[in-house]
């Protein structure tokens, strides 16, 4: 159906009741704006089918989970799922949302450690992820026969192990 005022297709269709008479109004977007009617919002498909939308979101989250990878040791989520063991301390942060669920269900809902801690725990935490990554880089460098880079990494690792001045 075309606009009442021009040949463009109508996007606003209204029935106006005035003084006991009813009248149909069909307007194109320009004339609708001019007459002060709000334009219909183009609705995304996901809003019309809210369920489909949430499925898509869950799928997206799942595929994000599946593609998660630990930057320090290179463990992928798929391998973790299969073996149920982690690759290194940094995996705990890399796979955080999944690990959280696994631990809470295995530990009767417990979410935090309450037991003993080692002396200097925070410093250990800071250094351990760095060291794991450097060791992996070193192995990769050796495998790729990048001996100069390997030598440099080895020195850096040694420096990391010796107590800081």
């Amino acid at each position, binding site marked *: 159906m075309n606009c009442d005022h021009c040949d463009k297709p109508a996007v606003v269709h209204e029935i106006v009741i005035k003084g006991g008479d009813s009248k149909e109004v069909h307007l194109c977007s320009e004339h609708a704006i001019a007459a002060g009617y709000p334009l219909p919002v183009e609705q995304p498909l996901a809003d019309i089918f809210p369920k489909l939308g949430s499925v898509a979101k869950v799928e997206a989250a799942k595929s994000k989970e599946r593609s998660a990878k630990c930057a320090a040791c290179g463990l992928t989520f798929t391998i973790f799922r299969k073996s149920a063991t982690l690759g290194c301390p940094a995996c705990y942060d890399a796979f955080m949302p999944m690990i959280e669920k696994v631990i809470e269900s295995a530990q009767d809902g417990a979410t935090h450690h309450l037991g003993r801690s*080692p002396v200097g725990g925070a410093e250990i*935490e800071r250094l351990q992820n760095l060291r794991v990554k450097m060791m992996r880089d070193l192995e990769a460098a050796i495998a790729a026969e990048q001996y100069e880079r390997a030598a440099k990494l080895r020195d850096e690792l040694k420096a990391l192990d010796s107590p800081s001045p």
Partner: protein
Amino acid sequence: MSQPFSAAMSQVGPDSDVVVTSRVRLARNISGFPFISRASNPVRQEIMRVVRRAVDQSCNGTDHDQGMRWIELQSAPSRDRILLSERHLVSRHFANSEGPRALALSSDEHSSIMVNEEDHLRIQFLCAGSRLSDAFKEAFSLENALANCTNFSFHPRWGYLTACPTNVGCGIRMSAMLHLPGAQIMKETDRIKRAAKELHLAVRGYYGEGSESIGDFFQFSNQTTLGATEDALLEEFNGIVLPRLIGYEREARTAALARYRSRIEDIVFRAHANLSAARLLTADAATKDLSRMRFGVVMGLLPIELTTIQRLLLQVQPAHLSLIDPRSLESEEADREVRATYVRQELMRGTKDTK
């Protein structure tokens, strides 16, 4: 390792009528190294070097002053590896797997450290009878000594980090090997297992994870390691759960004997007769009959020392049997024959001793 008598598995302790052994095991990983599944062989060698150095340093001038033997499993003869697993010092998986791995073992064989098992370190204390709080103290004393010489992976929220995320927190596994013939006769074993599950305990067989129960021996252990202090976990397991399990089994035994006395005597005396007469004996069959005899001994039906039964339970296992008489390795028939002969002799001697 050729002397089985130092092994906790062959000894007797408090509440030994029900509790065969107590063990506390702490999972720790060396900071700055990947966990075992992502560690190449050179990295695993490096982990062993770090642990060995820490063991040597920490043993100086402490309770562990006698030093610890260092056994590298990848180069150890297969018989030695099986001996260790029969003594419950290493898991079967650890005995049979591949790659650089070691066991540090104190001379009395109570303290040990599995290196490069599922975690870099499994620090453990194993002893006879119900002595969990001793085991707890000893395991932490060794852990403390090691912590002075190396850093363990730690996370402010999750505590001690472990390769399997379900062991985080305190990284502690307390377990007790229980002998439950009373519950078995009263058909209460499944109920106990269900109750244990509700209390978040794991129930395993004679050789731990993935093994079946032989001769009514069951291993109970805690699964909760997060959200409570180590002392609270010990108090719950050792102060509440374990005494209940022991009490339950003792009641079941008394009830069983009151109701089925002839049946129980029949089982116990037949087992004794069987082992006193058999000419061929498999390890499983021997274990089952020794378990029945064990029940008879603690109920006062058989005039034999519990230590004799406990020692035989270990010595009938294949690798220990081959220490007594290497001919057992020649064939399956020879293995059975050697076992039957040895058990017969020992039972004759054991009965005489107590007369």
